[in-house]
């Protein structure tokens, strides 16, 4: 291996007729005067001067016969390969490298500084650095078994130097972006990142729109025993609407407007109405009652009629109170204006209620989880999470700020609140670029810009970096980039990272789980293969398998059907009634569907009768 051709102080070409160069591998260029600089292979070529290229003029035209003749003499033309590679010098040089300089592969110790910024016990072992496979043998023990790989459904031992992310450096370079198209390995990578953060007992708040983040099942039986690990007891999974929601009593008018507008955008008139109607300390019930009474008032032909019926309706309440309430309604009537405005508020409110968002355990559980240094995973539809995230983030970020500010001023903080990391997939939904008003964007922007001061960090994954808010994007100091195909997204990546054009060119072709890390922590773009996960989410049923399996309900229905056999397909009334009596309301088609399914499974048989059509009976 040696340096050939023109060189400069940043890049050289190297060539060999025996070594096939691999992308991203490191080489040492033996140029004493320049202290034997290290370079990284960024482009590779193989060239056979005797096999003409498609578009080159070659002086030698070879026909297959001659090649065969030579090969029978023990000479393979294919072996006349010349391998060349473009190498980027990783240190700063002030004059060019000598042409002809020898090139060799390094051992680990010679390049350690370039590859490792911290050790596995201090940082996050996310995978291996590509191109370092040749260093595996010279790798010290503590670095050897921290990142087994997953290839083609099997676990493979770690090859190469582990990629260890120094998460403490987030204090200087906050926030992480995880970008990549669908199927590129984003979720997988996010999982590995979360596993590592859990291991370090970093409090995590994970928004999980895909219901895929749980950490209690072993990913693969082939994982080495000393690597296997699950995290059930360090996770707390909550579902918005079931386990958690917002505390209505704590909502400000602005909060409530945010929530309502998440259902569907709201007008200024609606905002004003909400502001007027919501009273401090309102529960959902009191607010809803007031809103409905107000609507009745606006609906009734005149105020006196309403007054009469109202005073009559709730005799058990103290008359003074009733009157005060009535007066309040009258006053509100003047402020809120249109009935249609109230109706619009009403249906949004009811929709939220039905989704369970006001089913409040407050966010106490989340707080407790974070304080216990757990990963709190909040599930819900994107729609719900968008609403919820705004509320939760404001509340928790606020608490953390109060605590930090108090510490700063030397005051005794009332409530200790830990630093935490917010993780979410589909981040472009939470902080979209553009005009429309998305409640969570403000909070995410604020954390992106100020979070570092308070020890609150973001890990945002998205398949559409181009749709992510610019301010937020610019604050993601570390970016992990998987396969990306869309040109818009590639453009954003080109602008927002220090990736070179060679790497950008490779992005559309990366295999799942392979990506680049662009981070000021490293000072250069590092190609990585994300390690095998330790855990997986419970087996996801393929929807097509789902169609083929028979669940309990189906079984029950079929049993009832069997009891009613034989039946005639043109007269299912008895069967329908029988099923309804058991709580199964099915159409005629559905029932025939069940019958045919049972025929297919060989449980019953179907006969054709010329007069009545099909008759089903026990087999």
């Amino acid at each position: 291996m040696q340096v050939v051709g023109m060189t400069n102080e940043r890049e050289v070409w190297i060539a060999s007729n025996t070594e096939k160069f691999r992308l991203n591998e490191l080489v040492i260029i033996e140029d004493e005067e320049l202290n034997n600089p290290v370079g990284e292979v960024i482009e590779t070529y193989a060239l056979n001067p005797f096999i003409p290229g498609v578009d080159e003029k070659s002086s030698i035209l070879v026909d297959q016969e001659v090649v065969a003749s030579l090969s029978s003499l023990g000479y393979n033309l294919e072996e006349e390969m010349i391998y060349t590679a473009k190498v980027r010098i990783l240190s700063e040089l002030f004059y060019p490298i000598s042409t002809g300089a020898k090139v060799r592969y390094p051992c680990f110790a010679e390049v350690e500084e370039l590859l490792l910024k911290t050790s596995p016990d201090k940082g996050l072992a996310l995978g291996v650095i590509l191109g370092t496979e040749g260093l595996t043998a010279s790798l010290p023990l503590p670095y050897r078994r921290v990142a087994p790989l997953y290839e083609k459904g099997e676990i493979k031992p770690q090859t190469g130097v582990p990629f260890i992310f120094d998460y403490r450096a987030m204090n200087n370079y906050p926030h992480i972006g995880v970008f990549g198209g669908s199927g590129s390995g984003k979720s997988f990578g996010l999982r590995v990142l979360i596993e590592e953060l859990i291991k370090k007992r970093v409090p995590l708040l994970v928004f999980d729109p895909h219901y895929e983040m749980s950490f209690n099942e072993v990913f693969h039986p082939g994982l080495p025993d000393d690597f296997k690990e699950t995290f059930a007891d360090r996770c707390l999974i909550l579902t918005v609407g079931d386990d958690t929601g917002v505390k209505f009593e704590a909502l400000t008018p602005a909060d409530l407007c945010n929530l309502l507008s998440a259902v569907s955008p709201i007008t200024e008139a609606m905002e004003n109405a909400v502001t007027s109607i919501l009273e401090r300390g309102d529960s959902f019930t009191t607010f809803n009652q007031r809103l409905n009474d107000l609507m009745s008032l606006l609906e009734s032909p005149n105020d006196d009629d309403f007054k009469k019926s109202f005073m009559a309706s709730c005799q058990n309440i103290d008359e003074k109170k009733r009157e005060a309430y009535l007066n309040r309604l009258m006053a509100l009537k003047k402020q809120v204006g249109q009935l249609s405005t109230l109706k619009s508020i009403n249906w949004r409110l009811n929709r939220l209620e039905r989704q369970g968002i006001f089913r409040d355990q407050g966010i106490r559980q989340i707080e407790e989880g974070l304080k216990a240094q757990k990963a709190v995973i909040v599930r819900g539809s994107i729609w719900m999470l968008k609403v919820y995230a705004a509320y939760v983030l404001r509340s928790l970020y606020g608490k953390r700020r109060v605590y930090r500010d108090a510490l700063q001023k030397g005051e005794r903080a009332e409530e200790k609140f830990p630093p935490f990391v917010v993780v979410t997939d589909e981040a472009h939904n939470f902080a979209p670029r553009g005009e429309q008003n998305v409640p969570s964007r403000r909070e995410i922007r604020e954390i992106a810009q100020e979070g570092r001061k308070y020890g609150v960090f973001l890990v945002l994954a998205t398949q559409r970096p181009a749709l992510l808010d610019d301010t937020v994007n610019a604050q993601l100091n570390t970016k992990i980039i998987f396969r990306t195909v869309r040109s818009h997204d590639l453009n954003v990546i080109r602008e927002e990272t220090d990736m070179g054009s060679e790497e950008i060119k490779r992005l559309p072709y990366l295999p799942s789980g392979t990506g680049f890390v662009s981070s000021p922590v490293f000072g250069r773009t590092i190609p990585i293969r994300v390690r095998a996960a330790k855990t997986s989410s419970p087996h996801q049923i393929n929807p097509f398998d789902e169609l083929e399996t028979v669940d309990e309900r189906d079984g029950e229905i079929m049993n009832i059907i069997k009891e009613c056999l034989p039946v005639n397909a043109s007269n299912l009334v008895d069967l329908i009634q029988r099923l309804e009596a058991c709580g199964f309301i099915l159409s005629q088609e559905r029932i025939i569907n069940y019958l045919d399914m049972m025929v297919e499974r060989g449980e019953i048989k179907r006969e054709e009768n010329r007069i009545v059509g099909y008759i089903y009976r026990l087999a």
Partner: protein
Amino acid sequence: MWNVQMVKDLRQFNVYIKTASKAIPHREELRKALSLWGTFRLGEKIPSLKLKELLGERTIAAVDGSRIEYASFYPYSLVLLRTLGKCTGREDLEKSKVITPLHAETAALVYKKKEKEGIGEEEAYRLYLKEELAHLEILTALEIAEKYKPCLLMLDGGFLLFDQFAEWRKLYKFCLENDIILVGIIEEVATSVLAKWLDLRLDHSLRIYDREILFGLLDKGEYLLFAADKNIKKNYHTVFARLGSLPQAIGCDFLAEQREKITQAMNLLYTLTPRHGQGIPLWLQITDAKVRLRKKETEKLIENCLEPELRELFFRANRERRAF
């Protein structure tokens, strides 16, 4: 820029060579005449399997050399010579030499040549270089022959280029003793013997070269083998052959003692030559391509090894500093 006179002169030259080419008889006539001196034969492509059988453990070898100069003007010249012996399925053998008349020793040798040949000093230097390369090639060939004892050993160029060296005798003897067919492949035939044999004459004194007669004369795969007593040069047997698609023939020099091997050798050479192209056996082309010293690379190498000031002092011509 060219002027009217230049155009006129070139047109006139065109007429001149046209007349000359017309003096050459037609193909059929030529073939008839030449068949009195030798025989036209058709080569055979040997199938791979049979080739293996034929050669057994033996191999095909070729030797070629390359020379490149880094210079301003004489005697500020630095020449690199490199030769390569390549044997199928075996390791390559490379030799090289750096020559410059700035060395007293070399200068003395060049001076001797100049005196002997009665030519200019620079011309003597050119001749010296050519011979040095041929010498190096013969040394390489000898080493290849001794090391691998190939079945066929190709040299790049006719035997006349090589037979002045002491090692030639050694190579010659070794090849005969070890049944190595030695062949000198001549890509550009430069002799002018055939016209004399055929008694072709032009009205003016223009010479007819063999290549003019050979052009288009042979069919694809055909070669012309002269009778044993009809030698183009010395007592070597020269065969003219068209092994590829181009209509021009190449020459192949054989040793007189190996005459009965010529058929086999020609079939081998034909087998190893791509159907389309100049008709040079691929093995020789590969050797040629691998040994060739390329200008840019060489310049880089020299610039790396010589200090800039010295380079400037010795090898930078004033005209190179001109802006146009």
